[in-house]
Structures are given as structure tokens and as C-alpha cells.
């Protein structure tokens, strides 16, 4: 197992978008230490859609934080071959003082885009998530689903760079639809797939919903809980009831092992 000295994700030219190699993350020290992730290996190819599935405590969010560079692994190595990963959270987390268009412009502004280009790209991205007409609305004037779509547009904007270097993009999504009602969630899943197909970004999507994982992911990766490890993976198949049942059974099994302890 190689240990990255500085612990931050490294950029390297390989055939993979993200590579996690024996990643381990421990919170706290001594007796009270909690191992969130242990010996986790995972690869995501450029343009691939991978769903991470697991119950509470499997370290899904920890994993995304590590890949996003918000936190450092205790040991192991994370290799990124993409532009800075964009992150979408369960909450839209839009800036309440900015209207929808300016929220999308914010990452462009931070990246140093000029004013005209910012406006054009933000309008384009809002159009992509079918919110062309609401750029001037504030977050509190939008529904939950619309806010998440603005957040999606903003995440896509965060993958753009001024020099236009076409590094593959990576979108990290942390249960982004969990707080939405069933119908909106269904629509949002379709919307995400459509946007995914039109952008070719790689997606690492964390969820605890088996149906969602099976519908969205080209690959579904099941994680165990405390510590999180890869248990098994499947190729995703939309609307495959048998696969959904099989994964659900295995997920239940993983959860059941914690009952005795």
C-alpha cells in the first residue's frame, strides 16, 4: 500500500478518472477512534457513472469528501485525472443573496472567467437543466427540484476552466435527491441522466436507495458499514427488478451483521 505523503488527491495522466488505492480514514484517536473507511479500492473511468450504495455509517460521505479534497485520507492514495471535482450535496446550498443565474456564475467567477463569458455560460447551463426562464429568480422563489437543478448547473459550471483545457470532468453527488418528494426525485433522475449523456462527465453518485442506484449507475458498488469497504459490484440495468431485489438482499445482509454487535 502506498501512502501519499501530503495526502491530497494527485493529478496524473492515466486512463482512469479517479483511482482510490487502499484508502483508509480514521476519525479520532485511541479508544474512541472510529474507522470510517478501510482498505477501499475503487476506480472510475472517464465518463463513467458509478453509484456508491450503502447503509448509514458506510462512509459514503467521507469518501466523497476525500475525493473532493475537503478531507485527507489517514492512509492510502487517491489519484485524480480530472479537473477539480464538482460536488452536489443533499441540500441545494444555493447562495440566498444571489439569483439563480448568479449562483451558476459564482464558480465561473472564482475560476476567473470574464463577465460576458460568465453570463453566456451560465445561461447555457441553466438552459441545459431546463431553467432558461428563471435565471433572475432567487432561491427562495424556486421549488426544491428547481433549486437542485440550479445546483446541478452550478456544479457543472465548477468543472469549467478558463484556459479551456479539456480535462475530463468529475461530478461528486452526495444523495442529491434524498430530500425531494418521489415524483420530483423521479424527474430529477431522468434529468440527471439526460445532462450526463450530453456532457460526458464522470459521476460518482452516493445513495442509500437501491432502485436509484440501479437506475442511474453503469456500475453499482455496494459498501459495507463501519468500516466502509467494497463488498461487491454490479453492472447497472435500468428497471431490472431482479437485480434490484438481489442488491437489496445483499444490502440487508450487510446491515444485519451489525445487529449482533
Amino acid at each position, binding site marked *: 500500500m502506498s501512502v501519499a505523503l501530503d495526502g491530497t488527491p494527485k493529478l496524473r495522466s492515466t486512463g482512469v478518472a479517479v483511482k482510490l488505492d487502499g484508502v483508509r480514514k480514521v476519525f479520532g484517536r485511541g479508544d474512541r477512534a472510529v474507522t470510517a473507511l478501510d482498505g477501499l479500492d475503487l476506480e472510475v473511468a472517464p465518463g463513467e457513472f458509478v453509484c456508491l450504495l450503502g447503509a448509514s455509517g458506510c462512509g459514503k460521505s467521507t469518501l466523497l469528501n476525500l475525493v473532493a479534497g475537503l478531507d485527507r485520507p489517514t492512509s492510502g492514495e487517491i489519484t485524480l485525472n480530472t479537473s*477539480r471535482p464538482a460536488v452536489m450535496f443533499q441540500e441545494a446550498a444555493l*447562495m440566498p*443573496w444571489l439569483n439563480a443565474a448568479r449562483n451558476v456564475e459564482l464558480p465561473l467567477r472564482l475560476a476567473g472567467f470574464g463577465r460576458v463569458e460568465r453570463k453566456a455560460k451560465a445561461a447555457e447551463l441553466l438552459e441545459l437543466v431546463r431553467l432558461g426562464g428563471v435565471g433572475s429568480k432567487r432561491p*427562495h*422563489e424556486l421549488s426544491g427540484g428547481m433549486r437542485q437543478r440550479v445546483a446541478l448547473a452550478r456544479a457543472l459550471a*465548477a468543472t469549467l476552466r478558463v484556459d479551456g483545457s479539456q480535462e475530463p470532468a468529475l461530478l461528486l453527488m452526495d444523495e442529491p435527491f434524498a430530500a425531494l418528494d418521489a415524483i420530483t426525485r423521479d*424527474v430529477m433522475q431522468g434529468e440527471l441522466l439526460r445532462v450526463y449523456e450530453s456532457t460526458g462527465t464522470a459521476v460518482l453518485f452516493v445513495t442509500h436507495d437501491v432502485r436509484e442506484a440501479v437506475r442511474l449507475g453503469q456500475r453499482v458498488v455496494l459498501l459495507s458499514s463501519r468500516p466502509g469497504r467494497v463488498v461487491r459490484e454490479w453492472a447497472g440495468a435500468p428497471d431490472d427488478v431482479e437485480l434490484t431485489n438481489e442488491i437489496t438482499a445483499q444490502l440487508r445482509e450487510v446491515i444485519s451483521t451489525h445487529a449482533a454487535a
Partner: protein
Amino acid sequence: MPQLDRSADLSAVEAGLDALDTPTSDRRESGGARILHTVVPPVVALVLLIVVWQVLWAAAFWPETQLPAPLDVWSRIWEISSDGEILGIVWTSVHRAVLGFLIGVVIGTPLGLLVAKVRVVRAAIGPLLSGLQSLPSVAWVPAAILWFGLNDASIYFVVLLGSVPSIANGLVSGIDQIPPILPRVGQVMGAGKLSSARHILLPAALPGFLAGLKQGWAFSWRSLMAAELIALSPDLGTGLGAYLNQGSSFSDMPTVIAAIFLILLVGVGIELAVFRPVERAVLRSRGLTGSFT
């Protein structure tokens, strides 16, 4: 199992959801109704106060030297208004307070940012800042006069010690109340320390900061009045505090009441004319209209 065609009507469903789920904008009161609700109650309260005052004066419980007639006070205000003296008095005080307040903002804002974001600084001067906020800044007047002499520097020193802690503390509490997800979003978008402060922390803390500014203004104003009351010198000109002091020296009760009334009027006037509309606009634009409906 019948397969649901998910792509075909997705856009229509989505458009329908958008239309149904969009929060309906709150109905605004008409101009007339708003004036009725905001202007009438304080006017009625003021009229009642004057009526009670008039009745107490007419009953003659206290000698005229202690409780002057409302009309006497009014004629005193009218007197200084008609010869234009009032402009000079009010301007002397207001321009000091505004200038002192603006300097306070320039000092208090970076100070608040440092206290809020740098742990060592917070541990070191956070308690001091809160302590200074509860220390009446009039306590600094004697020291200021000994240090700087009877001049404007003394007065600004006292005003700054009144306003800076409030402004800095307002910003600190504004930053402390930011939902943690917002700075995290900034971080994943690649915002550095400075751009995070500029694009995320400061705008997100604006409601709390505005509350601090409002308090900072109130503290500037009352510190200034305290300083003007105590620090008297021909070089300093006649502000409202000095005018109040004059009234007191000549046992001229109508002048004293008139001065207090003017001090109150300026304090409330600036709050209503400047801070209230700004606060209202900021909160409304963020959908935080609870307190105004």
C-alpha cells in the same frame, strides 16, 4: 412489468412540477394599507404621550422648572429653527457621528472578520471585544481628554470605542450563524481564503452584520452625545450635547427637553431613513420577510 417510458414526457412532467411547486409569491400590501400599519401607530403613541404630558403639566404636580409645558419646548425648538441655529447644532453632531461611524465600519469590519475566522485572535480579543461593548464609552471621556486634549480627536476616540466593538461583534455573530454548507460549497468550488471572505462569508453574514451596524450607529450616537456633554470647549463648536449642557447650566428646562427631543429624533431618524430600508431590502431579497408581514 410494464415499462414506464421515462424519457418521453419527462419535460412536460418537469414543467408541470415547476409550475405547481414554485412557491407563490407573498401578496404585498397596497401603499395605503402599509402607511396605515406603519405610520399611524407611532403617531398615535406620540400624540398620547404629549396629551399625558400636557395633563400632568396642567395639574401642576411639579414646578415649571422641572416639567415645562409642551408648548414652551415647542417654542424653543421653533426659536432655534427659525433663526437657522438648529442646522448648525444638528450638523455639528451628525457629521461627527456619521464620520465616526464610517471610520468604525472601516476598522470594525476587518477586525470582526479576523475574530470570526482566526481562532487565536478570537481567543485573545473576543472576550475583550464583548467587554468593551458593555463598557459605557462615556467612561473613556476623561482619559480621552487627558490623552488628546479638548479637541475632535478625543471625541472621535470615544465614538470609535463605542461603535467598533458593536460592528465587529455583529459581523462575528453574523459569520457564526452562516450555515456551514455554504463555506463548504465555496471550498469545493475552489474559493481561497480571500475570495471566500469576499464572495461567501461577507454576503452570507450580511443580515447579522447589518444588525451590528445598526447597533454600532446607536452606540456611535450615544457615545458622541456623552462626549459632547462632557468635553466642552469653544474649539469644539456647539453640537447637540453642548446645547443640552447649556440648557442644564442655565437651569433652562425647555432647552434641556428640546435637546433631548432632537437627540432622539436624529437617532431614530437615521435608523428609520437609512438602516430600516436597507435591512428590509436585504431580508426581502433572501426570502426572510417574516418580521415585516
